[in-house]
């Protein structure tokens, strides 16, 4: 699920950036530092949408670096248990398959794949129904439901299922 929230961060700026473009330098550095990171609390920071406020800088003793407290608005993505996501399959193996929904990695184990789909090993390992009409392989797009999340301080990993109504392949690259 996506959220638009305000976060705060203490930015350290090198003295060489001081000058007319100090503010622009500060913002670009913030974007470089923050976008794409993941915190267990808020999820993945997708994009910074604006700067709320930049506080007074504080010169660090000894280094000359200046610390600015910056408040910024950003879009974060945090997966939740029970959430339905669309994801791209990245790897298929005997134990199930891995998929990605943006920055989040999701594992679907083989017992959470419908019973009528069988694992086919080979050059392009895949799960296929007995009549061959539905096939899950690398780069397939699937709709899945998250049934468990593992949230570490800097990492979020999910496990999902496609064994439910309206879940499964939504766009097969082979047929497209």
């Amino acid at each position, binding site marked *: 699920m996506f959220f638009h929230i305000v976060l705060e961060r203490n930015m350290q700026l090198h003295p060489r950036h001081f000058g007319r473009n100090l503010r622009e330098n500060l913002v670009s550095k913030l974007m470089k530092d923050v976008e794409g990171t993941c915190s267990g609390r808020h999820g993945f920071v997708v994009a910074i949408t604006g700067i709320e406020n930049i506080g007074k800088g504080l010169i660090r003793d000894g280094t000359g670096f200046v610390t600015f407290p910056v408040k910024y608005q950003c879009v974060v993505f945090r997966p939740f248990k029970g959430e339905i996501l669309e994801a791209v399959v990245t790897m298929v193996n005997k*134990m199930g398959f891995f998929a990605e929904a943006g920055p989040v990695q999701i594992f679907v184990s083989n017992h959470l794949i419908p019973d009528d789909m069988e694992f086919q090993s080979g050059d392009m390992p895949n799960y296929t129904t007995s009549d061959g009409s539905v096939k899950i392989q690398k780069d397939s797009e699937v709709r899945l439901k998250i049934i*468990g999340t593992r949230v570490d301080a800097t990492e979020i*990993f999910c496990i999902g299922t496609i064994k439910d109504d309206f879940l499964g392949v939504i766009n097969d690259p082979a047929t497209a």
Partner: protein
Amino acid sequence: MSVEPFNKLVKLAARAFYDDITTKGDNQPKTGRSDNRGIAVVVLDALTRRQWVREEDLAKDLKLHSKQLRRTLRFFEEEKLITRDHRRETAKGAKIFSAAVAATADGQHPTKEGEEKIKLHTHSYCCLDYAQIYDVVRYRMHRMKKKLKDELDEKNTVQEYICPNCAKRYTALDALRLISMDDEYFHCESCNGELVAESDKLAAQEGGDGDDNARKRRREKLRDMLDKLEVQLKPLVEQLTRVKDLPVPEFGTLQAWEARASAAARSNGDSSGNDPSRSSQGLGGTPMPFLGDTKVEVAFSGVEGKGEGIKSEAESTSLKVLPPWMIKQGMNLTKEQRGEIKQEAKMDGSSVAVEFSDDKKSTESDDKKNLQDEYVKAYYAALLKKQQELEEAAKKQQELSNTSLFDGLSGTSSGRQVGMKSKRDEDEGDDVEWEEAPVAGNSNENYKVDLNVEADATAEAEAEVEDDDDVDWEEG
């Protein structure tokens, strides 16, 4: 608070879950002789018939070796079915417990008074914890059903993987760390062994994974198991629902239970059950309610026409037809209590005070002594009249009080020492105890006479009151 439904619950649970529990380690060979399956059921059944029980006693009752029993009990403690208590205690402390047991089980009373050993032994006690048993059984059923159901519809379960080499377990949440670049399997982090999915273990012993037929068979098997579980545990479920709204029998901690049991024994008027617990514990809390009865006794002195105004009032109001045994009981306790307090208060000063008062008496206050002697004589004249109805015990009592009074104050101190608790136990029993308290009271009053010169008249009256108390107890 009925224990019966809970006992039934325990018995059912024991047979359902602990029937084939063996406390032997797996490494020991199971010969026919050492096979102790079913012992868990026996022990649990035995515990339903008891409250707190010393484990040695239980072992003796069950004709089990105490080690074997302890192993079983430890298992139950881990299962949270029983609570245990260990304490280091003397032989005397063990006696408290025996007294409490006798009070609840109203079996034979422990009469033997073994000499006190200073050596401390660690004794273990155990007791069923009904409230927890109820929760444990419910939780167990819930887990069983959940496990089967989850596996049946294979939905929303986090797949578990297990390493066959080192038995390390992983969940699907660890999957990212487990994939290896070489092949399509998961590998153990520590030993790099190939992981196998864990849930297949319970129901699927069939070869050939992923076979359509096999899956169907597995589902059937699971459903079968679930049905069987429902049917076979039905009595247990029914018992659980029956017990649901009943108040849970609660024995409290070992100490609380002992105190309550001995208190209950006392209020039953169970004098023999009373003795050991009191002699060893001397519970301070319980005698308080009987203070009212003391007044009744004091007022009884007014029958002889010598009581004070207030006290006779008290008498007229509270001198009901109290059954004699009740008076005896009440007096017994309060007197003891009072005597103790006085002893404590006077103990340090008594040796000095006795000497001191003796000196005083001999030198300066002879007249008071005479007065007192006169009073004593008059009192005993009155007393003798009364004593025609009295029994032998009364005579004995009179002798004792005579000696204590006629000997003068020097005698009282020795009398008081006689009244020490330790002796009381082995002596004739209750009669002696009742006598002692008034002796202490008398001596106390006498001190008053000596020390408070101006208050001797009232002191005498009080002394007399105390003496009258003697008479009453003799009657009772």
